[in-house]
């Protein structure tokens, strides 16, 4: 009870709750966008798409053994990747379609905003746990990502499909992760595993 009453715990719980709501809304929007995208791009909804490069897979082994920080960091990395990919999709969409299919462009832009907001939300949670938020530029410099290869239009379409599908998966995982984080820790008052996180 004491943990539950501490201001930081309450704030974390509040952030988690709002994050869960954001992720739920994001998933609903992604699913809607996925339908529109498949139809507009003339794709087969059942087509299997290879994993999108640069996006950590939502499915992970030993999920329940992960620490809270691990969860937040993985989420943050994924949503930062999604942010970049969605921005690229939006740009490609503008290049290829111009002012046609403006509705799809607007939906993509809206989703990009949601992803950015969710990434910011995750950063807030990480700050709350007194963990440093990994810088994006720093990561890029360290990783030294090569410039993305120029894809054919068909590959762009498939990649877009893969990005949206994976984002939908991540939205589900994020809800579960945040629920896990929102659970009060009986011992420390922190999220489960946070204390032992690196």
């Amino acid at each position, binding site marked *: 009870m004491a943990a539950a009453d501490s201001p930081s715990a309450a704030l974390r719980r509040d952030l988690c709750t709002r994050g869960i709501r954001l992720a739920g809304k994001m998933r609903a929007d992604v699913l809607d966008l996925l339908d529109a995208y498949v139809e507009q*791009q003339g794709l087969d909804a059942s087509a299997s798409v290879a994993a999108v490069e640069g996006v950590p897979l939502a499915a992970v082994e030993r999920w329940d053994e992960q620490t809270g920080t691990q969860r937040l960091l993985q989420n943050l990395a994924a949503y930062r990747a999604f942010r970049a990919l969605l921005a690229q999709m939006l740009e490609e969409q503008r*290049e*290829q*379609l111009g*002012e*046609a299919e403006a509705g799809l462009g607007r939906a993509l832009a809206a989703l990009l905003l949601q992803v950015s907001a969710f990434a910011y939300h995750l950063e807030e949670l990480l700050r709350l746990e007194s963990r440093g938020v990994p810088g994006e530029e720093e990561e890029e410099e360290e990783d030294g990502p090569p410039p993305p290869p120029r894809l054919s*239009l*068909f590959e762009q379409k*498939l990649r877009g499909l893969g990005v949206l599908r994976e984002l939908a998966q991540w939205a589900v995982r994020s809800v579960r992760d945040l629920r896990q984080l929102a659970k009060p820790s009986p011992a420390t008052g922190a999220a489960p595993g946070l204390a032992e996180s690196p």
Partner: protein
Amino acid sequence: MCFETKERRMKIPIPESSITVTIKSSGTAFATKEFVIHQKDISFAPDTPHILSLMPNFRTSTLNLKWSDNGSDFPYGLDALWQIQILRKEAMEVVTQVTYYSKLTHEDVILSWNWTSDMPLECTSHYVKIRRYINATQFLGPKDWSDWSPEKVIPGKDTEPGESGVFPLDPVVAVGSDLTFCCVHEEDQRITNMTYGSKSYKMMRLSSRSHAIRVLNASVSNSSGTNVVCRLENGLEGSVAFVGYAPDSPQNLSCETPNFLIIKCTWKPGRPSGLYGDRRTTYSLFERTSGKNVSCEVSDVNKDHVCGFPVLPDQKTYDFILGVSNPIGQAQSSLLVDITQRVRPKTPEKLTVTGNNSTSIQLRWFINGSFAEIRLLCQIEITSSHSDRKLHNVSVPGRKFSTYTAELNALHPDTKYQFRVRCSAADHFWRWSDWSRGVEQTTSEAPPARGPDIWRERSPSGESLRVFWKPLSLSETNGKIVSHEVSCHQLETVLERKTVPEPSNSTEIKLGKSDCEIRVVARNGAGSSPPSRITSVELPSDNVTTDQAVAMGNGINISWDSYPNMTCGYIVKWCHSSGSEPCSVDWQKFPSNTTNAVIKSALFKPGVRYNFFLYGCKSVGYQLLKNVTGYMKELPPKTAPNFIVEETSSDSILVKWEDIPIDECRGFLKGYLLSFAKGEKDVLKPRLSESGNPELKVNNITDLTKKSMKILDLQGKTSYQLELQAYTAGGLSPPNSLYVVTKEDSVGLIIAILIPVAVVVLLGVLASIFCYRKREWIKETFYPEIPNPENSKALQFQRNICEGNKTLKTLEMNPCTPNSVEVVETQPTAPKIADTEMMSPAAETTVPEDGSDSEMENHVVVSYCPPIIEEEISNPPTDEPGGSSQVVYIDIQSMYQPQIKPEEEPEIDLVTAAGYKPQMQLSISALKIEGHSPVEEELDKTAGYRPQTNTNAWNMGTPDSPGSVESNNENASFGSPCSINSRQFLLPPKDDEDSPKPINTGWSFTHFFQNKPND
């Protein structure tokens, strides 16, 4: 010449005509060969050509072949033919072979040839080889093609290890094209299918790693292109095809300048290309004179495309070419314009009103542009609440980014105006600019334009004068009227002055018997109007006539004779009265030369009488000339005239009536209709005029002074209905009715009494004489000395004691009332009870159906004495089983019920249990159970009626059902007892006897009786 070589071939110069060749081989004697070669026997085959380069263009699937003609080896001007062969696939199938012509120039020239493949070059390897033929005309011998050059190859992607994909990659083609797509994959992969859009196509094998599909007549793709998908066993490859149209030529290209800074060209793009984004149609505006080119950013969505081109210094004429292109094609449209003649100024801004008085204002506005080279024509729209829209044009010299002004005059004071402005070029009108936003301004007030129209009337006493004026029209008030000033002048002396605030339109001035000149001025916030004048003097008039007038059209026409001495015109005055309010005076003035006028007023109502007074105007005063009574429209009188019967006689009625009040006449009265006919007073009776009574007589009284009428030739003591109606040109009033009975005619009455009395007396006398003369015959006929008993009523028995009148008991031969007993021969085998049954009235049912009348004729009738009926009713026959008790009283139930209780008559128990009592057949039916003889059957047929169903059926009733004994007793209360003479009523009809129907099976008596009334 001797040549030495180690090869087996040798080139030697061509001889002039022939040459002897000796081939020797060193070391052997047999190796010598000698022969002669003639020039005509030598064949001419040029050297094999050499392909310099073969360049592929994968985007366009085009091969570019380059080779040298080696012309320096040949004399100038020889024709050269080049045969080029294209081969494809691993098997090197010939795709095409073409012949290319060139002329040798004695120089080495690089020749080039392009070929576009219908198959993407990536799909499979393409090979090219070439040979030549030189038409050496001076060479006598046979000429031949050279050998084929070695093939040059453009390897397909299927030859490159690890290469895969669908080709061509993201092509953009025109609608209707035939497309070939191939799928290059790894050696060990297998293609599941290939689709274009949603349709699967049959694949052609190009190589072990390449398969192709062919799409014919491609239709326009959607905005994101048409996917070409190659499904592999473990993957997916694809390409996106964009099929669209080449750009349409721009239509309606038009250029104009809004400000001499930029030229705006607009056009309609025509048919959409179906291509978007990077593949969209792009536009560029090229000006030929200056050589300047501008790229146009246009929206795909808007239908009207606009492109701006800067106005160049010192250039008036522009020769524009609008170029249009997309990946499929290009088009253009051109326009030559003089920009000074294509000016559509920008919308005027900052419109303001400055300098405002009651009739003029100044407008100021700004136009953002440099119009120094032209004049501007600006149009100002003026609208106000009480005038139509007006347009005012002003021409102003154009200036650079300047403000323009215009003054508007002849406005109306105290009026709210709305203004807006638009401009164009004055000298070469092209188009108006858009309207500026509007501004509102109200002009200031000015004194009323004129004095009000006035009239005056002296009071009946002559002591005061009432002055009337009409309100000024909106266009005359020039502001809000606040009051009227009325003054009375005698020469230059003001006798009285009054200020009357709005909204009064009259005032009273005490004058006494004197006269003065009345002056009235209207006053508003800006000042007073000029005065209106009228004299109070009224000149005496004589011989004033009263005319009648009815409106023709929408006004009442009044005419008068010309009065030369009426120098200042005429005035027609009238009065409007509405209900109880005092009459409001109205008037209209006419010039001196007028002799008629049509008076119109929205206040005139149909059916209302208006009195018009025509005054003539002289310099000294006004004189009444004529009265006119008029109606806007005549209506039927509202009420009927009241009338009474003044006196009646036996043949006449004198009727008198009263005038109808003027208000109820509603028109000029034309006369009365007096109708009469015979008729009694009856509320429901229709009006006489509507009754269609043939005796109806109608008197039309057109003499309006006549107020009575005598109706003659009527019948005495007869009721007459009278109706009186008045009528105008508008129709008949409702009728007023009266009923009058004329007086009795005394002479006729006396005659009517005396004649019947005389006739009766005469008849009496005649009868007496006749009786006296025939008295013997009468005596014998009516009063004989020995009376005939048959004719004696006193000796007649009552025929039907039951139906007989009780009051006749004194005449009955009681205690033995004669009655009839039918004696029927009894059957010797019949049981004793049969006798009883014989005595029952039911036995008489054997008589013919014609009833009691025939009884006397066909049977021996023995009189007997039945007990008194009343006693029989009170004492059931079971109490006295004696002889007289054989007379059985039956009622309706007795048709079905035994008169003897079942326990007392066990023999008939069965029948009794069946719910009814056969009044004669009862015992017979009982006997039938034991043994039914033919005789009994005969008896059965002839006597009474039979059970209508078998008795067993009747026993099926429940103990408490209506069919039980108790129920029977209850049911005995139905119907009234009757003597045997009433049996006819009780017996069923013969038909039922002959064919009894088991209609009562399973049915209760109660039910039967309930249904009886329906029967």
